[in-house]
């Protein structure tokens, strides 16, 4: 063993306690205070090197793929008449300057490098709120906002209530508990596109589709839920019918995670509360509303926030039900159930400033929702 690696040369000498003993001495309390311990000291890197080594990989990738894009998108959103200029790279700021530079020339007197080439002077770019105006006034965006709000406001509370009831139900039984837990968690491990496709076929417009059969059993007329072309005898699709499919899909796949979280929350509730309530002869409903829900409120709050934000960003579940590609949301023109995120993706190549402005609007909305919910929670959540 290499002594020098672990022992300082003067380790056998007693330490000088008065001056603190140096950094190879551990001060123990009480009686042992006077006895310095021999500590093996290894060679270590200085602190800053450790920090750099451990943080560098993450920071590099985060900078390139998170911070830089955020800045880039924000800049684009505020530039009026933005257009990519050849050779200016993909950083919007440098494109801005190049566009400004080029706009000073005319076709007759092209800038250097364009001799023999076609030159059309671009617009003078300016920083303004014009893109936001375009987005907020756009009828399609308003529809997207409305759709997103409807889907969120209906599906999230519905899913949460059902999940809560199911969790309490599972928690209260002994037999088949594991079975139900497994079954209700299954939708979590499915693929969003696959689920959408299955729902598309389940809600097939043919009268023989599963949902249409169920409707006919109850005496109704079959509907073409999502598809545009309706066979004979089938009611044509409406916004409502497609909305039903979307909500059904959202609830179906959303229950799994919530039930899981609620169940783990329920497991932490002290049994004593229930026992006390039982002794008091409290009715079960009162137990639920006065004990279970308040004690579960941290989980409910967490689930509510994440579900609202998640539902607000709904995108792939809708296109997977329609199944006509990443920008088709149903209906004649593909914007029937367009959502805010869908709006952003629609313009990502044609009208980039609009997409960027839309993304910023989305950010603001998400922050708003979070703030509002946090305020509400301050009164309702009991830790």
């Amino acid at each position: 063993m290499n002594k020098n690696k672990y022992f300082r040369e003067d380790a056998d000498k007693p330490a000088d306690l008065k001056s603190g003993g140096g950094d190879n001495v551990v001060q123990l309390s009480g009686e042992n205070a006077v006895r310095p311990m021999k500590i093996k000291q290894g060679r270590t890197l200085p602190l800053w090197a450790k920090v750099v080594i451990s943080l560098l990989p993450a920071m590099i990738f985060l900078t390139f793929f998170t911070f830089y894009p955020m800045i880039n998108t924000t800049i684009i959103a505020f530039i009026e008449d933005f257009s990519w200029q050849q050779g200016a790279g993909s950083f919007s700021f440098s494109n801005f300057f190049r566009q400004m530079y080029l706009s000073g020339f005319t076709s007759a007197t092209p800038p250097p490098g364009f001799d023999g080439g076609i030159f059309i002077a671009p617009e003078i770019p300016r920083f303004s709120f014009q893109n936001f105006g375009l987005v907020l006034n756009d009828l399609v965006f308003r529809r997207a906002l409305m759709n997103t709000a409807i889907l969120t406001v209906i599906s999230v509370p519905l899913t949460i209530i059902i999940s809560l009831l199911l969790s309490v139900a599972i928690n209260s039984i002994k037999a088949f508990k594991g079975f139900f837990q497994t079954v209700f968690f299954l939708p979590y491990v499915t693929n969003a596109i696959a689920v959408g496709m299955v729902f598309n076929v389940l809600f097939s417009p043919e009268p023989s589709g599963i949902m249409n059969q169920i409707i006919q059993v109850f005496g109704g007329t079959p509907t073409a839920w999502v598809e545009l072309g309706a066979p004979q005898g089938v009611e044509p699709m409406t916004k409502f019918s497609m909305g039903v499919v979307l909500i059904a899909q959202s609830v179906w796949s959303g229950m799994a995670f919530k039930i899981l979280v609620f169940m783990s929350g329920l497991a932490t509730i002290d049994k004593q509360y229930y026992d006390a309530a039982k002794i008091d002869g409290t009715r079960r409903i009162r137990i639920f509303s006065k004990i279970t829900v308040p004690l579960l409120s941290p989980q409910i709050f967490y689930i509510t926030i994440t579900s609202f934000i998640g539902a607000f960003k709904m995108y792939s579940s809708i296109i997977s039900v329609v199944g006509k590609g990443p920008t088709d949301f149903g209906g004649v023109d593909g914007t029937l159930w367009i959502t805010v995120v869908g709006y952003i993706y629609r313009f990502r190549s044609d009208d980039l400033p609009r997409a960027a402005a839309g993304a910023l609007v989305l950010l603001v909305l998400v922050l708003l929702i979070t703030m509002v919910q946090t305020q509400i929670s301050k009164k309702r959540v009991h830790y």
Partner: protein
Amino acid sequence: MQNKKPILFMATALLVGVLAGCGPTTETSNSDGSNTGPKTRIDFWTGFGGAVNTVLEPMIADFEVANPNIDVVYETKGGYPNLKQAIDLSVGNTAYPHIANGYPDHFASYLNSNIMLPLDAYMAREDVGIDVDDFYADYMTENQELVDGVTVGLPFNKSTEIMVANKGFFEVMASHDPSVKVPETWAELATIGLRIKQITEEQGYFGKVVVRKDGGGYEAVARPVEPTPAVKAAFAAKTVFDFTEVEKSTFVPFNWDSTSNFFITMVRQWGGVYTEKGGNIRQGYLRFNTAQVVQGLTFLKGLSDQRIVGIPQVYGQTQFGSNPFKLGKIVLTISSSAGVKENLPNNSTDYPFEVSVHPIPFKEADKKFVISQGTNLALLKRGKAAEQEAAWLLLKYLTVDRNAEFSRDTGYFPVSVSTQSSELYTTFLNGDSSNYSAGDRAVQDTAKLNNDFYLDDGESWIKFVDPGFVGSSQIRDEVGFIIGKVFYGDEGKPITPQQAIDQAYARLSKFVQK
């Protein structure tokens, strides 16, 4: 050292921004990495699908053989929207190709980003130039009106729209009522459309196969049950048309594949104006909020309510009516001339019918408008002079040297007079069609149709194009929806033509002239 961490972070961020901003300054080396001499490599992007690629790729290979120092890397982006997006997003990095095809809308956007090369210099050269006047003026207009005095592209794959009819069906109809024929005008369609539905019902043809009777005349029978191949073949030989899959309640005889073209052609045929270009390629305005357009829409809606006229969605299709046409559910379909082969029943049913091609319906004899479609080839500003010239050589090769074969094999039309009258093409046009496959025959018929009707001065058809400006493709998409909404309602609610137009104007507010 700890103090420097935040500064280090800021510096890194700034550096990243600058680095990402710099475009690449070096061109890539040879794709195979070997040193085989100074080979010039050019990139060629299109949006073509499988059918055209099988014709195009061998031609590119031939070009490489004829020009051993040029290496062409061909890539198809699978659709024009994808192609435009790929190029739009590569502007900053100069990662777009040297040569690509596109519509005037696309070119307007590329011009706006200042990445296009003018062709005039190359065209005028002694050694590698071409004769511009040889190209059809119609096709050249859209390439020359984007920027004054500059030609930005040369026509490549041009097509128009034609009406494909179920020939057998109309034969039988005519035998019952001599006034029934393939309609030439909208007015004729209105009456004939009702009549053929009547006759089909009276004769009990729905759900049956109509076969030729031995003594002459026709009768309706059911399909043979579990036939042997011999029985099948014999039955197919006497089949005129097969309506087994067609029901009275869902029979809508006339279909127009492209709703955008439907709207735009209708606007012109009813005497209206569709869009207009402003002072430069960034300005374009809507012009279709007029009484004529409302009239046209009202008329068409009437036909739709009588279930004479339909669009793909009513047959459960997203884009094309070819599948229902092959099943007999449509008997008159308007499709792109280049897509005529898609409508042939061939192998999709055991008992096929014959097809015939006709010009599209018109309203008045002095307004026989039909759309001229298809893309042009253009050079994009990239690389050194040697690469740009190599790209020009490829462009010339495809539009001049091989245009005749390209037209013959794909069904697109010749772009120049010399191609149209070339030996190869005229032999094909006048060839004995009995030796051709059904597909080639259809292509030949279409080419003849183009020759004899659309191009013939006597017939006075006008092939129109719409001005290209930034965003014009957006307008095209939006007006396509108008037809569907007027016919079938907007989200389940009925909507009047004027309301539909107003809605389109509201959604295209950017293009409304203030």
